[in-house]
């Protein structure tokens, strides 16, 4: 609720761009003709938005960690790894 209120504010404060916001909570999207992965996302979006939200949150976490792990290895290979640093102002 706090974040909802917080994030409503930009539209109040900025008299934003004027784009009408559809009622997304009850909105459904088309699933015909989509690739398998898009159909998976669209189906859960239409069926149960709570599950969709869980999928989004978990996927963001996993994708972020996976890419970070790969980039870590690449940076280590070029000698750019990090360890504890001295804090100098």
């Amino acid at each position, binding site marked *: 609720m*706090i974040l909802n209120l917080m994030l409503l*504010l930009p539209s109040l404060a900025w008299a934003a761009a004027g784009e009408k916001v559809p009622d997304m909570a009850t909105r459904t999207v088309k699933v015909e003709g989509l690739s398998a992965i898009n159909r998976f996302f669209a189906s859960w979006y239409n069926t149960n938005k709570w599950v969709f939200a869980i999928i989004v*949150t978990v*996927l963001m976490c996993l994708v972020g960690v996976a890419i970070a792990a790969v980039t870590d290895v690449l940076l280590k290979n070029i000698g750019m790894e990090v360890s504890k640093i001295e*804090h100098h102002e």
Partner: protein
Amino acid sequence: MFDLFNIYLPIAERDFNALILVAIGFSVGVLGGFFGVGGAWVVTPALNIFGFPMAYAIGTDLAHIFGKSIVATAKHRKMGNVDMKLGIVSIVGSVIGVEIGAQNIMWLTKLGLAGPIVRYTYMALLFGLGIYMLYDYMTKDKRAAAQAAKMAAARAGAAPPARKAWNLPPMMNFPASGITISFWTVTGVFLFTGWLSGFLGVGGGFIRMPALIYLIGCPTAIAVGTDLFSVLFSGAYGCFTYGVKGAVDIVAAIAMLIGASIGAQIGVTAVKYVRGYGIRLLFAIMILMAGLSVLLKQMQVPVFDKVVVMAGALGMCVVIIIQLYRGFKKEKAEKLGH
């Protein structure tokens, strides 16, 4: 050829260029990893410029911020830059402050005053903070010399009277940051920063980071890492709640996260090579440009407000990458004994 990278966004139900999403994510990732901010104030105008459906912009942005902040926080933690105890205290204080700020806005909205008051408060904050941080940077040598003179006088026995310190118990110890501070100070600071976030309708990373430095006394790099830790939690909540509302395009979020995860690694690594005051200087320039963008929007100068924020963000990314490259080359040369 550019069209080769068009992807279909199943929730927004339209095509969009994946390269643009990856590029926006990358630049915000670099900024976020280096300054400890979420970067929504860059993403929203950037998406707007490129025609992304704005109904999904905030939710998609928060989703990618969550993923990016996991990456950046984990790396900052390796560098010893995350004070988790301080981060948790900041979250608790901020959430309460945000709610109070949001209630104030609801009250001002009923009076029909919210719009102009929020806009001017936002500008005052951005310009005030940016100018103060620039002043701080420009006078650091003078203050260091004055401090050295004081210490020399103290050693010679001519100690100045002790400054009164705010030591109202209970005192809290944050060993990772190396500070011991009154519970009332730390709670008050985060209540205030949370209130500002709720009042202005912003994530608050760019408010909390300088507050950690100037009001709590954290070293700059620890302020960056600890702030990212807080952003992680607000990003997670935002990702989930906007997902429930159906306002996240997951494919767009993944594309931005790919860029952001790589960018965050670069931004965080760059912290290793830039001293605290260097980070503060760059941060000051960045928020002054954000303030300029807000001013241009207030003056209703079309497009330029977005161009300024984008130019500022991209320019700052280039500076950070150059700092990283130079620092890395110097470190390599030192290792080889040159």
